[in-house]
């Protein structure tokens, strides 16, 4: 099979892109000088409510994946970061099994916040709008189920394919900004 010059160039460029491609859901350290996660992109802030976040900084609930758990721990603001399995274990350790039925649905999570300890719930949302997929990071006050903070980035296409450098890290950086603006005790560069 003989290829013309253009085809060879296209194949070469494809290999370059594959070799230097972005990462997906890789837990990383914050950069030492800026305190942010390494990316050049910025997320769009959809909703941001002024509040004193220090009333909730004891506990954060994250989805059942290692990435969310690792990144929230790396932010270093919350005393304890748990996923759903971790919250279930905390409930059993504190003898609240008979009071809290389940944390597998929204009323159950709300009940856990009221009965056990108030916490912030971090979750991801995916939305199709104007023929583009958007990935949102939302921070929810579990005792009222009110959204405190929502930011978003887009995949640029109709496909929900997101990566760290364009989507996950900018969203995490916007969360860092929100925490430092609303907490009297936290600063990003510490």
């Amino acid at each position: 099979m003989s290829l013309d010059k253009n085809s060879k160039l296209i194949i070469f460029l494809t290999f370059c892109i594959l070799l230097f491609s972005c990462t997906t859901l890789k837990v990383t350290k914050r950069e030492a000088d800026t305190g942010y996660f390494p990316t050049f992109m910025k997320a769009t802030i959809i909703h941001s409510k002024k509040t004193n976040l220090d009333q909730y900084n004891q506990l954060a609930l994250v989805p059942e994946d290692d990435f969310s758990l690792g990144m929230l721990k790396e932010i270093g603001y919350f005393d304890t970061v748990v996923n759903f399995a971790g919250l279930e274990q905390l409930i059993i350790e504190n003898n609240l099994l008979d009071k809290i039925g389940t944390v597998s649905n929204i009323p159950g999570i709300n009940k856990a916040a009221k009965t056990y300890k108030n916490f912030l719930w971090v979750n991801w949302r995916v939305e199709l709008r104007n023929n583009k997929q958007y990935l949102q990071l939302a921070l929810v006050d579990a005792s009222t189920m009110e959204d405190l903070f929502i930011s978003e980035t887009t995949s640029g296409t109709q496909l929900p394919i997101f990566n760290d450098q364009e989507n996950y890290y900018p969203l995490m950086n916007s969360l860092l900004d929100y925490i430092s603006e609303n907490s009297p005790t936290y600063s990003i560069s510490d």
Partner: protein
Amino acid sequence: MFFISYNSVSKFLAVASCLLLSACVSVMKDTSPDPNTGLFPTMFGSEVITNKRSDIDSKKQLLLVEVFHNGGSNYFDTRNVTDYHIKQLRKLNYFDEIYTLKDLELSIINNGLSDEITSLDNPLAISRAAKNYKPFLWLTIEIDMLPGPSAGNRKLTLIDPTTLEKLLIVEAHPNQWGVIATSDEAVRFPLYNALIEYIRQNSKGFK
């Protein structure tokens, strides 16, 4: 890609047909452990991810077995698979009784505890059953159906429901030989054997 030659295709076909032809390949076949070793016959191993010591003898009166698919759960019925796993696990002769989730629900109703224990569809409810009904062990087998390098992996998890602590997590990777193998020898027996080893380490009475 351009680089897949006829040579590599024929090599793949040769390996695949060898696997199909060889006598050891079976899918969900009724097999007993080898009387000499007490283990299920397989040349495949498994990866132990978590192994925590625990007094399992006090909970051996009942084992709850749950099988689920990670992805594609609407399309695949797990009842036959669950029945097969229960039949094989009975051959360990360690657990007094082995239940499915439905068996446990019926047993709770028959013991007049349905007011205290509601739907067993989440971990906290199963924990409440262990506390209010009777102590037991909870075993889940998770089949990865999501496309990607982990497709076809099986994960066995043994959980103490009173604390929801994961005592044993073992994974079987059928893709480790470059061929997706779903035979008992590749994905089921290695998990049973890891469970047998765990029981040997943690039980006083088990042979």
